[in-house]
């Protein structure tokens, strides 16, 4: 699918030449260690770089030139995977052939260069007003999680279950670390990002791989760099408390459960664990949905998810605040069914069919192609979807039961409505 070309030590360009889309997509991924300090600083940096630059010195000027380039989308975001922190420059532009104007692509490439290499600086620092404004924006972004109670409950559970662990560090860092970020530190992080971070560059669209790779090499001239230094350990330690209940002024209770599994992304049993999660709670045919929602009418949403980077599985449900005990009992009963291999041929077949469908569908969007390839490249440079599909097809009920037996429940977190006014 992707053709990979190394343009410098630690800098690779991966191109999928295709006419499937009406646009050309670029992703520049800058990878560093994940720590709360770095995550906070790099999130501010991402925002400062997408705010404006030397050539387009105000937010409005930059956005206007993007409008003129047929609404080319350009944004820089912060994300994390395992113990890596990733800053990504994402650009999507319309393929010239659908327009009555030519030369759009070259202008877009030039703009990407400007965004990365010509920041808006004054006396060796980022322009102070922009630095302060964007620091404020990241603060507001971190605080706004509180308004979405499902995300908030998940974050609270992780803070209780695995404090300081990469799994509980937010991609935007923490308020505490953000407070300490200085303009000087941001400049250092910027230099590290450009000169020391490993960079994976993805291009998807109707474009020649050699042409675009040599263009990026000549034009962006990234220096060679060494492998990134070791990150934080991702080893899992059982939390001290196994049940936490907190209260907010809300109507629905949010039940979140965390399990450990020794099977991670790098384990050969990884495809088994994906199926185990699917049979238990990944879909509308899964045991949790059928039993907790359809049979018991207790929940609108109830599902499980597998964080394979760390070997974690989560179960989430929105329930009446008074029914926590009953919900936990019913959920564990369903897990027990999986552990005993009480899985029908139909359930197994459905789960395989939907995992395969999900993978194939994701490959029908340029972003999906980039995300999947960027993730699986770590396992196998020549990643092909069929490889994963053949692994799933070989999984048996007994394999799934065995994986389920290795799960340990480590934390039950409940965010409940205030006790005095819980719903009827």
């Amino acid at each position, binding site marked *: 699918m992707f053709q990979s070309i190394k343009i410098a030590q630690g800098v690779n360009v991966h191109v999928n030449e295709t*006419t*499937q*889309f*009406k*646009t050309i997509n670029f992703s520049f991924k800058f990878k560093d260690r994940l720590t709360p300090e770095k995550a906070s600083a790099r999130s501010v940096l991402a925002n400062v770089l997408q705010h404006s630059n030397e050539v387009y010195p*105000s*937010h*409005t000027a930059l*956005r*206007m030139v*993007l*409008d*003129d*380039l*047929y*609404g*080319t989308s350009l944004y820089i975001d912060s994300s994390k995977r395992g113990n890596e922190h990733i800053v990504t420059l994402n650009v999507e*532009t*319309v393929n010239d052939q*659908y*327009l009555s104007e030519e030369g759009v692509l070259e202008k877009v490439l030039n703009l990407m260069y400007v965004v990365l290499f010509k920041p808006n600086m004054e006396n060796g620092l980022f322009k102070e007003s922009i630095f302060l*404004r964007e620091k*404020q*924006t990241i603060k*507001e972004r971190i*605080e*706004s999680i*509180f*308004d*979405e*109670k499902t995300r908030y409950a998940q974050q609270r559970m992780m803070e209780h279950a695995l404090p300081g662990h990469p799994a509980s560090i937010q991609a935007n860092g923490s308020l505490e670390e953000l407070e300490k970020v200085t303009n000087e530190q941001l400049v250092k992080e910027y230099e590290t990002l450009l000169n020391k971070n490993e960079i994976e560059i993805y291009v998807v669209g109707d474009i020649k791989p050699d042409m675009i790779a040599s263009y990026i090499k000549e034009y962006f001239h990234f220096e060679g760099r060494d492998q990134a230094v070791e990150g934080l350990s991702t080893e899992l330690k059982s939390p001290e408390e196994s049940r936490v209940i907190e209260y907010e*002024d*809300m*109507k*629905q209770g949010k039940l979140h459960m965390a399990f450990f599994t020794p099977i991670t992304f790098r384990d050969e049993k990884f495809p088994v664990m994906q199926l185990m999660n699917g049979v238990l709670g990944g*879909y*509308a*045919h899964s045991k949790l*949905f*059928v039993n907790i929602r*359809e049979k*018991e*009418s*207790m929940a*609108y949403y109830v599902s499980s998810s597998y964080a394979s980077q760390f070997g974690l599985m989560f179960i989430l449900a*929105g*329930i*009446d605040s008074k029914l926590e005990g009953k919900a936990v009992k019913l959920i564990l009963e369903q897990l027990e069914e999986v552990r005993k291999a009480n899985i029908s041929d*139909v359930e197994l077949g*459905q*789960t395989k069919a*939907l995992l*395969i*469908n999900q993978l*194939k*569908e994701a490959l*029908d*969007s*340029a972003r999906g192609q980039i995300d999947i390839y960027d993730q699986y490249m770590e396992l196998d440079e020549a990643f092909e979807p069929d490889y994963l599909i053949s692994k799933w097809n070989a999984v048996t009920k007994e394999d799934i039961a065995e994986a389920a037996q290795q799960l340990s429940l480590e934390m039950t977190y409940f965010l409940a409505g205030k006790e005095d006014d819980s*719903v009827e």
Partner: protein
Amino acid sequence: MNKVQFEQLDETLYHEKLANGLEVYILPKKGFSKTFATFTTKYGSIDNHFVPYGEEEAIKVPDGIAHFLEHKMFEKEDGDVFQQFSKQGASANAFTSFTRTAYLFSATGQINENVETLLDFVQSPYFTEKTVEKEKGIIAQEITMYDDQADWRLYFGMIENLYKNHPVKIDIAGTVDSIQDITAEHLYTCYNTFYHPSNMVLFVVGAVDPEQMMEFVKANQDQKTFEEPKEIKRIYPDEPMEVAIKERTLEMSVQKPKIFVGIKPEVLHYSGKSMLKHELAAELAFELLFGRTSDFYHHAYESNLIDESYSFDYSLENGFGYALIGSDTNEPEQLIKEINHTLDQAIEKWPFGQADLDRIRRKKIGFFLRALNSPEFIANQFTRYAFNEMNLFDVVPMLEEIEVPDLQAAFATVSSASQRSNFTIMPPKKDRQ
């Protein structure tokens, strides 16, 4: 079968209206491995007062019934339809809006089987008092979940402010109380009135052979018998141009206040090309006034009045619509004042010329072309347009036709002070100093 080519877009659309009245559209997508299909009825939460099929007298049905019906379509005598789709490797879903109920799946194989399942399950209602009762617990939790979502409360609070009588002001899912009154008989009445093929559209987009798919759908429909199609009589109350409530505040568990300024458009019963032109012109006008490149945005962002949650939206349907501008903000009153001031200034002196229009038009064309990468966007938007007698693929030519005075004229229908309202969500008092 009709075949329409859109050369500049490199797309070909196939269409046929079947003998039973069903409109079928097929759009093959080169290079895609998935197929996405929607089967949609022109029936949503606002259709709560109507003359049932075969009867004379209009009735009113409980709030939330269209959404309830959508949930119950999935349950059959022999089990749950999700199970069938999963066996065939398809992800299925459904949604109910103010004006539509859509059933959909996406799959990368067994497309005929999945299209058959989609058509058959939506065309074979099965409701009993027992299954209806059972669903009430699930939907009550769904409503409760939305009740805790501040952004949803803000949105609906705003719509309630704007509309005095029109049923758009009723929450799509109803309330925990209103759904208690729903019976199996109600569901059959609504089903028989609104799920006739002549009130529905099937859209299939992706890895399909159009000729084969059209024959397959026809054969499926030919096996079934339907009542004679009848014109559906929907009754909507009169709605004044002024807003129902000028301002309201609600306290919720949030970290920072949230506001919306809403504007109610003049009630204009547009359809077809005139609706498309009006809608696009209004969208362009709001983009210029409140978009990322506007003076308003620049000023509000740099002075910490708005943050990343800032949004603006313009939406128009036959008989109702709204423009919304809002954000999380530490200074709700100041932000409301500045939004109103921006509107007042534009009324007093229209600030935009040809160069502004050209730029924002290019942005809009690019956005549209990007969206055509998404089968979901095409199917959902095409259907919405079709129900209003518009064609999604006319968007680019229409954008190219629009002139500055069109923007001004569209803006004039959705801006005056009596058409505006605001809604604020505040954190609990004890948390504020």
